[in-house]
């Protein structure tokens, strides 16, 4: 049996790594990937609690998180492609105008 704390620590570490990725990288795609990682870190916690409390709700929430992640990926990538088409740039700090 894996202790509950293990899941939580794993989730926290992954979340921190993801957050570091988001805050430190300039490349927009890597930022999106890091966001995916953060969402999954949350899933680890959800599933850990689901196991610990013997309740399906955690897994259901994990499924919703995956749904949200799919939406986020689709829209985020669409924005990136549109940006890349208009301006050949992938770095977030260059995308600093509200309007082109």
């Amino acid at each position, binding site marked *: 049996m*894996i202790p509950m704390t*293990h*899941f*939580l*620590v*794993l989730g*926290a*570490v*992954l979340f*921190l*790594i*993801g*957050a*570091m*990725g988001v*805050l*430190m*990288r*300039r*490349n927009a*795609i*890597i930022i999106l*990937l*890091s966001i*995916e*990682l953060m969402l*999954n870190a949350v*899933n*680890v916690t959800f*599933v*850990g609690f*689901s*196991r*610990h*409390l*013997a309740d*399906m*709700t955690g*897994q*259901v929430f*994990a*499924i919703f998180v*995956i749904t*949200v*992640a*799919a*939406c*986020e*990926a*689709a*829209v985020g*990538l*669409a*924005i*990136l*492609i*549109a940006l890349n088409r208009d301006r*050949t740039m*992938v*770095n977030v700090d260059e995308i600093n105008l509200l309007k082109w």
Partner: protein
Amino acid sequence: MEIYFFYMFAGGMILTSLLMITRANVIHAALLLVLTFFFLAGVFVLAGAEFLAAVQILLYAGGIMVLYLFSIMLMNVEVAVRMRQWHRQGVVVLVAAVLLGLEIWAVLGEVEFGAPKQWEWSLGATPGNVEALGAVLYTKFLFPFEVASILLLASMIGAIVLAKRTIER
């Protein structure tokens, strides 16, 4: 036995995700993230969520990440590799991350979770993860489920509109 597998998967996840956020080449980063998701699926199996593990691989690894790779290939990767990779706020972020990590560590040390509960199967004689999940998802969480599907629809339309070259009026 289980715990060693958990350490293996957890270690793999942390290693690959650290590598992921440090790569200059986006394709490598995406592939490393796929690897992270594999390990994550392993963790899910260990936690008794095998359906979720399969969903993780099917949707995340097989779907979303391919979408990422697909989009990255449409862009010019080589240009991005030669650019400066990091923001100048890196040190601040590192310090903040370490502090936050310590805080979580401290909090977790305080909490007592107690003994884990056992599953109580309401469905039939064959306890199965899929049946239980389905039963909860389509009864108790039916409304959120429908909302999620609308969210998916909206994002699909949004993605198409955003990425379309010209919009016929």
